[in-house]
């Protein structure tokens, strides 16, 4: 019996094709990184291998820490294929564009902010916090996917950049939600109050949520022609 049975491609991303199917009879997702013909093959191989290794390693670490992320089912570096459990919910981008959504945009975004802070408290950045990469489900809340650009760090700069990517995407893709980033930050700041100061990571103390938000404001002034 074939372990992985593919049903259909559900997303053609910039890095990988995402397929829906079953793994040992259970619903699952396959992320297949196809070679990028436009990139030099050595650079392409280097990036694919590093990103795939990082994704598998960090997903395992985060799942152990109890964060809502996909669980790795199978890792095949030769085929550039990662098989993961299927998480419930729709991407944030769809929730924010759906005016009939049961949950208010505010509560969804605050919860997403909390989740990003919980990720950062593990000493890990996501690297691509677009509204496609946060899933939201009314029953089970927010979860995170797509950790290809994720990395281990304790630098306040890295966490600040992580939030900055989110700030730009929210401003560009969801201009109708003008307060979106404020809600994310509200959730982000609430977590330390509840769980205390961040734990010590391998490389040193992790920055507090306030320090990261302060750095975000600094990074926002670096782009061209900010207000």
């Amino acid at each position: 019996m074939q372990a992985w049975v593919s049903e259909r491609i559900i997303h053609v991303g910039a890095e990988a094709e995402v397929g829906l199917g079953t793994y040992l009879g259970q619903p699952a997702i396959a992320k297949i990184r196809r070679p990028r013909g436009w990139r030099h093959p050595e650079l392409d191989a280097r990036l694919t291998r590093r990103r795939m290794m990082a994704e598998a390693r960090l997903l395992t670490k985060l799942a152990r820490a109890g964060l809502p992320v996909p669980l790795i089912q199978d890792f095949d570096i030769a085929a550039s294929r990662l098989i993961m459990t299927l998480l419930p919910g729709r991407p944030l981008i769809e929730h924010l564009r759906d005016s009939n959504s049961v949950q208010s945009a505010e509560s969804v975004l605050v919860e997403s902010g909390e989740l990003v802070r919980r990720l950062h408290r593990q000493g890990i950045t996501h690297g691509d916090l677009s509204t496609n990469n946060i899933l939201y489900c009314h029953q089970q809340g927010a979860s995170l996917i797509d950790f290809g650009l994720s990395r281990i760090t304790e630098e306040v700069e890295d966490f600040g950049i992580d939030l900055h990517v989110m700030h730009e995407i929210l401003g560009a893709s969801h201009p109708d939600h003008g307060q979106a980033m404020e809600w994310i930050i509200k959730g982000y700041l609430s977590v330390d109050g509840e769980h205390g100061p961040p734990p010590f990571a391998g490389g040193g103390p992790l920055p507090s949520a306030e320090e990261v938000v302060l750095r975000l404001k600094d990074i926002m002034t670096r782009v061209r022609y900010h207000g």
Partner: protein
Amino acid sequence: MGFTLGIESTAHTFSFGLCDSSGHPLPSMSSFIRPEQGGIHPREAADHHVAHSGELLHQLLAKNRLPPEDITAVAFSQGPGLGPCLRIGAAVARTLSREWNVPLVGVNHCVAHIEVGREVCGCNDPVLLYVSGGNTQIIARLDGRYRILGETLDIGIGNMLDKFAREQGIPFPGGPRVEVLAEEWISANPDCGLSDYELPYAVQGMDLAFSGLLTAARHMVLKGKPLGAVCWSVQEHAFAACVEVAERALAHTGKNEVLLGGGVACNQRLRDMCSLMASERSAESFVPEKMYCVDNGSMIAVLGRLQLLHGKSTEPRNSAINQHLRTNETPILWS
């Protein structure tokens, strides 16, 4: 409606251009300052613009056999850019508009790069990869604005190429020379491995950064690696990062057209990478002719005409320049 005159003066280039009543651009008449050493000095560039504006206008009108009466609007770059340079273009524009008694239209330079690309390439709703000396942005239209999905967090890609070149004794603009050196190297050494010339690859979601790559490339030359090889590696890494974020933006927005713009879009390797990327994901890639990639007055005319058609002329009292004008501040009223 007759011809629209466009005036570009955001940085090193002073340029007059035209577009006809249907919005089609005509080649510009331009002059740009080549500093003997170092980068652009804003005041010296402004002096250059003052010195050349008169003759360039005469040349443009003479070349097109166009009497000034046929010009029915004057558009100029209102921002973003270097203040002293922008002020020259704005002053020339105000003068001509008053002298000829035609409407004045202040336009956003970055948006002009997009609109001229859409006009000459015939694409409809593209993701724009805007790569120039000062700017590196990924832009897409949503809700009546061109929104910035990602951008450089330190220096522009063209600035990175120019700085690297300058330190190797190549005068401004260094980008085209880096391209030639890279091409010569890889033609002479087709089996050259990229892993011997590994550089940082700074993609953060849809944001980019190039200063680390610049430092690493500089060290590579200091360690004695051949300049051509380093140029080649710089291009491979920096362009791949740009094309990757463009692809991320296509995936994120669900759009299927990508448009290149800005001076660095003249680079053939970047053009090739972009069109390969598009074809691999069944999208289409568009690149304007080089004269409409670099800063030019014609693109300002194209956007000025569009704005005027939608009732957006600029009163002289509102015609002050804005060095910090962001791409997403300009309302897009046309389709």
